[in-house]
């Protein structure tokens, strides 16, 4: 085991303290101005942002119809195992879409390389950027990145106006303190490393789908 308590720590801290004896100048603070325009219609903004960042947003009337919506989505996905966050809600939902599909529940370990899709919940939805905030509790770290399709089952009650509200929410609820991992996901995996041309599905999912229940 390499040493964690190390001599350099004190040396670096001492140098920092000596360096900071003289304060640095700072740019004049101007009067506080609004940096972002306030987000008013949460659902409308979320849907618009999903279009921009290439998230598929499937609207359903209520949570009970989520099973049917997931079944329709899975019909277009090649046969193979589906990785699902082990939660009472998603267990209940599975009956409606399973239809002979093999399921790996998150309680049985992380997703396998061959899994075809992940179904999970999320902590918060962010209207400002059309993002989905997941924690390690939403099926683990690999859930939202290994499979080529990620289906998020959520309700409009999870919508918050902006990133600031989303971070405040997960902090207040103790999710930040309890989780070793959180990820604010905005659209599916992409790269523009070849000639700045946008290509979807670099290392993570090619498709991110939010099944969003109105109630």
């Amino acid at each position: 085991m390499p040493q964690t308590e190390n001599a350099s720590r004190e040396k670096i801290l001492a140098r920092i303290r000596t360096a900071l004896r003289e304060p640095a100048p700072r740019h004049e603070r101007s009067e506080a101005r609004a940096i972002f325009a306030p987000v008013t219609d949460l659902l409308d903004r979320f849907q618009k942002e999903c279009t921009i960042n290439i998230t598929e947003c499937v609207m359903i009337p209520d949570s009970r119809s989520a099973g049917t919506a997931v079944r329709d989505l899975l019909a277009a996905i090649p046969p193979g195992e589906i990785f699902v966050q082990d939660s009472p809600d998603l267990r209940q939902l599975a009956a409606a879409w399973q239809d002979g599909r093999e399921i790996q529940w998150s309680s049985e370990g992380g997703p396998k390389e061959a899994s075809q899709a992940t179904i999970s919940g999320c902590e918060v939805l962010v209207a400002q950027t059309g993002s989905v905030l997941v924690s390690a509790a939403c099926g683990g770290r690999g859930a939202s990145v290994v499979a080529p399709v990620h289906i998020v089952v959520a309700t409009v009650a999870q919508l918050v106006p902006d990133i600031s509200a989303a971070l405040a929410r997960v902090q207040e609820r103790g999710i930040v303190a309890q989780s070793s991992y959180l990820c604010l996901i905005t659209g599916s995996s992409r790269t523009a490393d070849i000639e700045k041309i946008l290509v979807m599905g670099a290392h993570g999912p090619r498709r991110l789908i939010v099944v969003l229940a109105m109630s």
Partner: protein
Amino acid sequence: MSTAAQEFLRRSIEKSADLTHKQIIRRGIDQYNTANDRGRMRFADWEAARQRCHEIKWEALNNLDRYLLEFEQRAKERGAHVFWAENSAEACRYITELATSRGVHKVVKSKSMVAEEIHLTPALEKAGVQVVETDLGEYIVQLRDEPPYHIVTPAMHLTRKDIADLFKEKLGDVDTDDPVELVAVARRALRRDFFSGEMGISGANFLVADSGMIALTTNEGNGRLCTSLPRIHVALAGIEKVIPKLQDLALLWPVLATAGTGQPITCYSTLIGGPRKPNEVDGPEEFHIVLLDNGRSELLADVEQRDVLHCIRCGACLNACPVFRTVGGHSYGTTYPGPIGSVLTPHLRGLNEFQHLSYASSLCGACTDSCPVKIDLHHHLLENRRNAVNGAERPWSERIGFKIWQWTMQSASRFRILGGLARAALRVAHRLGLDGTPLDPMGPWSKNHAAPRVPKKSFRALWGKNNAAN
């Protein structure tokens, strides 16, 4: 002139005449500009955002010891190991020893400029550990055995054909230059590595003091795979990366994305604090954070340039810089190219050897305007020039030249007499046919520009004559 300066000049001359290079870079930067313009429009007030980011980083840097200790304590409470490294050697040694003591054969690496700075990959390879770069751009330059060209888009200088040829040679069985297909080829190749790597190495865009978490920004998802699948995760970050609060990310994330690529926010804004918890599904068993100084605390002591440590490595100043666009990222021969590299490198690697970079600028100020944390880049270049003249070695001819200049400029009569002598000497030299010969007094100038013909009369003489006529 230092060797680094000679090399810089040689490569710059070569690159600025390379028309293909010019075309590729122009296209890349045009696309960036369009996206960046659109991205800034999403802010009600981009200038207020820059100001606020400046204030966040100012607060962090000017209380650096306090925030680092807070970060360390909270990260340790979450089960992270925190190691402080004074320099490259110490950081490399810690990570290499960790890898060998844990029986690691393969490391999957997410993009990290600090890892480039400390030359981590060669150190691990020397210890017999295979290192796989997993960011697509980094993977491409690694296959080419090249350093990254740009801090955000490492393979910016290559065409799809270059990349197709490279994949054909190194990976075989590639018969396309379609970017979609090429990305799929890399995805397939790297999947095997993600699932077999025992250690993942990442950088950190921010170290969040009040939460003890690191924030990692990626688009491809490779950073997430590197930090989720292997049994050990090592995050490497400069000490200047700390920020006070989790809430600060509500602004820093969108600003970094906008300045970096023009996106409203990057695809994956990840927060990692500690190894997998007992009730969690997956994640590494061990999480190590290496905090690197490597000259940063000395730069912190330079009050005038302390704000250079505010840099969030977005690459905006590279894209804005006419010199970067002309000479390209590799000509600098430094880890950090472009304006921020020209300011920072003399601090990290010595002003004497790298003072020439202070002159690799037209001082147009485009870098300063583009900086999302308001670093006064072009004035720092001027300060480095001043410091170089005061402290470092300059040729004696330059020193004497400026002494004479100073003496001349301090008196109107000296200026008139010496100006007249100089004008006469230049006209005589021209009449004697010395233009372009080693004896040409305008030699250094006319090497790169057409030398102007010296007029018979001075400006002052003409002014006097014309005013008298009126």
